């Protein structure tokens, strides 16, 4: 039996390798073209993935990734026992949930409203303008935010008219999240509405005609035809969003926060940046980053499974 099985396997393997050799002969120039692309992915994606093992080591540049000694899950325990652990988790979740509650629905509402504009040229101008902030560089946007939230800014000039005191918003922990979220909507709501506008054009026109004959008002049409029509897009975007729940980007926060606002502004990714690249605690910060990605990935799988169950929509 055993002999036979082995023989069969080797026969299949022989067949298979023949197929591969034939394929290599036929497609070698295609595979040559793939080489630089594969080199890129191995060098800049897979090699850093392998580099993650320094989370379980005490990395020193002199010894390299392989030579550094193992320390097990010491860095993870250090992070969980860290006095900042709860603050980082809380800040990350607060910023993430705030953008989920406010920034996520904004482009959907905007797309629905743009869709209601009857005049073609007006609709085009609105779109041209609301997409614009997406193209302004983050550094300039953050420069604008700093200017518009300073105590001499026009927002403060207006607040004074209503009897408020002048405040430099980004020097108060309690204002950081609102400033972050509002500017996020300003930056991205327009651009993110494109995908919903595209979904809106694919809703069947016959449904509307039928609804009009049945005497449905515009509001009813929106509620019972338009929104169900774009629901798959909304759900897909929602799953992606959940998968990025703990992925609060560091770039904008690094540009806007300062030690005074760490209390509400410091999130996991900015902490990884400071610990790793400013204080050179490479292994520790890699461990923190790895913990962050594991939670993210778990959330993504969970959200995807949930949506598959409820709506039969899945990312994979």
């Amino acid at each position: 039996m055993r002999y036979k099985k082995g023989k069969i396997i080797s026969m299949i393997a022989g067949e298979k390798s023949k197929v591969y050799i034939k394929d290599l002969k036929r497609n070698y120039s295609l595979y040559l073209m793939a080489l630089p692309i594969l080199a890129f992915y191995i060098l800049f994606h897979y090699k850093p993935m392998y580099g993650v093992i320094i989370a379980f080591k005490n990395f020193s540049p002199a010894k390299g990734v392989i030579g550094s000694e193992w320390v097990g899950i010491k860095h993870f325990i250090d992070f969980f026992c860290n006095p900042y652990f709860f603050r980082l988790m809380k800040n990350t979740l607060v910023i993430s949930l705030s953008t989920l509650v406010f920034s996520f629905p904004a482009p959907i509402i905007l797309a629905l409203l743009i869709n209601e504009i009857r005049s073609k040229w007006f609709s085009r101008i609105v779109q041209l303008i609301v997409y614009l902030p997406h193209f302004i560089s983050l550094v300039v946007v953050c420069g604008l935010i700093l200017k518009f939230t300073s105590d001499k800014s026009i927002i403060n000039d207006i607040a004074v008219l209503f009897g408020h005191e002048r405040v430099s918003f980004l020097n108060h922990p309690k204002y950081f999240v609102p400033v972050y979220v509002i500017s996020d909507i300003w930056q991205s709501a327009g651009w993110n509405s494109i995908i919903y506008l595209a979904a809106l054009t694919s809703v069947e026109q016959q449904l509307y005609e039928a609804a009009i004959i049945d005497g449905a008002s515009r509001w009813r049409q929106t509620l019972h035809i338009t929104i169900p029509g774009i629901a798959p897009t909304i759900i897909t975007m929602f799953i992606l969003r959940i998968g990025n729940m703990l992925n609060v980007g560091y770039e904008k926060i690094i540009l806007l926060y300062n030690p005074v606002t760490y209390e509400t502004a410091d999130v996991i990714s900015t902490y990884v940046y400071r610990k790793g690249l400013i204080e050179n605690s490479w292994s520790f910060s890699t461990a923190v980053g790895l913990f962050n990605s594991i939670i993210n990935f778990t959330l993504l799988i969970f959200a995807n499974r949930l949506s598959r169950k409820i709506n039969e929509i899945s990312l994979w």
Partner: protein
Amino acid sequence: MQISRGQKMFNVFNYILMIFLMTVTLYPFLYVAFASLSNSVEFMSHQGLLLAPVGFNLNAYKIVLKEEMIAIGFRNTLFLLVTSVSLQVTLTVVGAYVISRKNAILVPLFTKLIIVTMFFSGGLIPFYLNVRSLGMDNSFAALIFPVAINTFNLIIMRTAFITIPNSMEESAMIDGAGPVSILFKILLPLVIPTVMVIVLYYSVSVWNSWFNAMIFLRNRKLFPLQLVLRETLILNSTNAMAQTGRDSEGVSETIQYAIMMIATLPILVVYPFLQKYFVKGVMIGAVKG
């Protein structure tokens, strides 16, 4: 069709809301433009809405245009735009072509290897240490090679290749054309609109990127524009420039606005003409993504 009164009211409300949204979006830019053209002292004492420059003058621009770091930033960014974007587009087109072929056994494996990187990454620190260990630290190489392919753009490009009917390629193969000439002579002319889209996407990301430059560059002569902007707008180190502009504090404010203007103007000028290509890219990406 009869339009109900509620409907009419909604339409009016919607138009007003849209005009409001456009104003909120555009006003910050107008404010920056007016502020940059203002007299620095008068601007300091100005309060409330700015609907025109106060004490119109071009002093801020004169100072900024003489500033060496701004010139260096522009030069480096232009250099990066040319080199980085051509490398990115070349690799993306070739890579997308390879993973859009259906009659090669290894292609599905390549595709999987590439897609996996959209979900998993080593994270910031391993990425940083990797680039350093490759000896690219403190050089343009650190800004060019690690971002040589963006997987989203690769997928957009692949979608374009897949939608071309197979018969085009088959007839070329019968004529004895290899994959290289099939790609460049036959398929590429058919996907030029999508190539334009990814050229724009890559250009925007190169123009806007600052973080990699911040963590990898120490030589100030290599700083791209955005990193110079970060120093002047975020870290507030206009001191050097303010001294050349004599009256310190007052000038620095209007100088900062002038810098924002100069750094954004190129985008504002080309944006209206290119907007439709960007939107098209989102549509293509949405089909597959």
